[in-house]
């Protein structure tokens, strides 16, 4: 079950970044041929073959274009409003959050099902549905367990009837099964809910569309998309600076975008090297560029979460906390609190420290426009002034590590 599920996910989330690369460019349809030959450092023939191939590709094909995602900056929010862009930005690297959904923008899908506007034999479960389903299962399990415990107490008090004894036996068996099932099931699997789901649907068919819902439907009877994806500042800057895969009409250039992001944290016009946005961005970029899926860690009181592939595949493994290098911005109690929360959800806490350059070093690169002609290169040079170290934090339980 889990494996089959994974296969499906692998297909949907095939690309780790919202960037079409030459080997999977749809326009060419030459997927198999468009791969470079292997290069063996000790084999000069492979070098020649490699360079010929490369030259051929460069002359024959254009690099796939990658700027079809429009981002708008409105009311201090970076928004993606186009539906296919929304899907793309989520499916290729898990960026942003659907404002009406938990993370993946699924509002329209869910509403279509809720209002019975599409016919599906086996409706696709969204993440929200899966969570609801899992919670229902858990509540059911707890109810049954409570019942069993009540019966056990009755037995001890010697007030139990034969019928109840039988019931107790059965409950015990069911609970064992349920426990087993919950251990096997990972994200997105669940069995017993299907029946309940059908019942609900039957009820809904008879329902008339409410007045407030009717406003969601246009004159052609189609559902209006009212959801948009909101990007974090660091996400926006990453998509623009590192991948250059988005277009933001509000800003003429990268520096302007950078300034807006920095000023989000400090009102003053001058940008200090320890501006919170810069620190957050560096940490974000650092882990993103190592292939991690970085998402906000606010739900655990930390700055970021690290997923190995992305939320649908596996739980996040790490929680990152950006620490102040020179002062104690947290005390032991605050660190313990966060660590306890992080530990209880089976994640590892990582304290990330960023060393900043001096303001002179920073300004020299940031305000000197003559030396480098390209903005991307300017920021590369700027970010290279910083240093990053991590500290892995774990609880130690001496009674467990003894043997």
């Amino acid at each position, binding site marked *: 079950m889990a494996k089959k599920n994974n296969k499906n996910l692998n297909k949907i989330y095939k*690309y*780790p*970044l919202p*960037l079409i*690369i*030459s*080997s999977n460019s749809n326009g060419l349809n030459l*997927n198999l041929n*468009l791969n470079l030959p292997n*290069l063996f450092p000790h084999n000069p023939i492979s070098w020649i073959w490699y*360079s010929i191939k*490369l030259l051929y*590709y*460069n002359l024959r094909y254009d*690099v796939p274009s*990658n*700027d079809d995602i429009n981002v708008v900056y409105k009311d201090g929010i970076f928004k993606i409003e186009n539906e296919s862009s929304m899907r793309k930005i989520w499916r290729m690297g898990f960026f942003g959050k659907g404002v009406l959904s938990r993370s993946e923008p699924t509002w329209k899908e869910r509403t279509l099902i809720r209002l019975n506007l599409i016919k599906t034999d086996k409706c696709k479960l969204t993440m929200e549905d899966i969570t609801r389903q899992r919670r229902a299962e858990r509540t059911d399990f707890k109810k049954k367990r409570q019942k069993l415990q009540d019966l056990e*107490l009755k037995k*001890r*008090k010697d007030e139990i009837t034969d019928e109840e004894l039988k019931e107790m036996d059965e409950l015990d068996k069911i609970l064992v099964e349920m426990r087993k099932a919950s*251990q096997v099931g990972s994200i997105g699997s669940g069995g017993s809910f299907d029946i309940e789901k059908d019942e609900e649907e039957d009820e809904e068919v008879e329902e008339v569309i409410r007045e407030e819902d009717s406003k969601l439907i246009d004159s052609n009877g189609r559902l209006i998309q009212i959801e948009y994806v909101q990007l974090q500042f660091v996400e926006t800057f990453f998509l623009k600076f*590192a*991948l250059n895969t988005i277009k933001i009409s509000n800003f003429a250039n990268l520096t302007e975008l950078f300034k807006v992001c920095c000023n989000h944290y400090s009102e003053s016009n001058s940008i200090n090297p320890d501006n919170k946005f810069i620190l957050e961005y*560096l940490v974000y970029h*650092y*882990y*993103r*560029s*190592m*292939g991690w899926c970085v998402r906000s860690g606010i739900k655990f009181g930390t700055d970021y979460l690290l997923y190995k592939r992305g939320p649908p595949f596996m739980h996040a493994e790490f929680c990152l906390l950006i620490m102040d*290098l020179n002062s104690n911005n947290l*005390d*032991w*109690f605050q660190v*313990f609190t966060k660590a306890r929360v992080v530990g209880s959800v*089976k994640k*590892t806490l*990582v304290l*990330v420290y960023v*060393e900043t350059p001096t303001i002179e070093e920073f300004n020299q690169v940031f305000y000197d426009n003559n030396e480098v002609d*390209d*903005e*991307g290169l300017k920021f*590369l040079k700027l*970010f*290279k002034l910083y*240093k*990053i*170290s*991590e*500290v*892995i*934090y*774990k609880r130690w*339980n*001496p*009674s467990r*590590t*003894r*043997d």
Partner: protein
Amino acid sequence: MSQDELNDLIDVEDEIQDWKNLGMPKRGTKEFEPDGTTFQLNSLEDSRNAMFNALGANRQHHIKNTLVGIWKDDSNSCLVPNAKGNYFKDVGKYNKLYNCIELNPIETIYLVERGSMVIYLSDDEFMDWLKDRNMEFDYETNLVALDLEYLYALSNVNFAKYQIYAYLKRLGYIIQEREEIEQEQEQEQEQSEEHKQDKSFTILPRVWGILSYPVLHSLQFKKVHYFRYTDVYKSIQLNIPKIPKKEPSSPFHLTFNVWKPTPNFSKKSPPLPDFQVSVIDTSKNTDFLKFSQIQQLLFEKTTSLQYELKVKESIKKKPKMESKKEVRAKKQAERQSKLNESTRLRNEYLKTRDEVIKNGHGNIVLAVINNGIINFIQLGIGNFNMSQKTEQVNRLEEIYPGRHHELIYNEPVY
């Protein structure tokens, strides 16, 4: 959350001691609540009585086995002229001058507090006797016996340190106070990553003038062909270096060396400690450590390399009993040996990589104590970018040479 995870949340330490050790359920506190049945009431009563019996029994030892310590106030230590019993495996140090074992205040209080040693105050007569020791010395009539309270008052002991020591010792660990800062330690060798970038295959063609856009150039992904996401990731890496070590203004130090219980521990040539512990008393100052202080502690840590130089090869015999962990590891190895070579290597690679990322390197233990309440944590330097070439990182390089091991994205084969 699965039942398993819930169970994990219940701390072993949180378990209530079941003095009866039979009949009663072991886990959790709920089962100990009275539920209105006589059965439960009786269980509780039995358990309570078992505890009283255990605590109320008279503790006795044979007069011949009495362990006697003499408190020497001028040196703030305790001399044991006739060391016997099992305690001296890790406790005490040989004092050449007096030809006997000498205990530091922490060790002294620990032994006296657990009722294992009787202690007297030294005087000149005793010190004279200690030199030749040609006849029996009657401590009881010649010296003043100290009670625990008096000992506490006399000994100049850091109570936070003592509490950590006693706690770990009672759990069965072998523990020794570290000597004052040891020899100079070698600077960790951080290997520069700067040159690595230039080896990347995507850059080479640029040298030949085919591709002319450097990494993170704003037109990079518009003008350069990429065929693998691995290369995309490589090209956007900033190769940010680690923060160099700085001397902290108020450094902390490592306090204890701790070993897991082992039958053949030798005080003279101890193996590399399993844990190196720093005691941090937060009763007065609750500020979290600064990064420079963490670096300093990790720097102070004795590494296996230094150990091999310092300690002569001490033969480590394997304990007879296999722990659960070892059994599990064995089974795992067996399962792996049945797979074919490339799968086995791949599994080893992925496992080792996860371990490097998750554990970092150079772990130390901080025993954070606040008015007697202890919380232990472990800190290690993170190695997400694999710039520290530890043994494990080298193993990764052995398995898949030339691969960017820090890249956790696995390129699928299309």
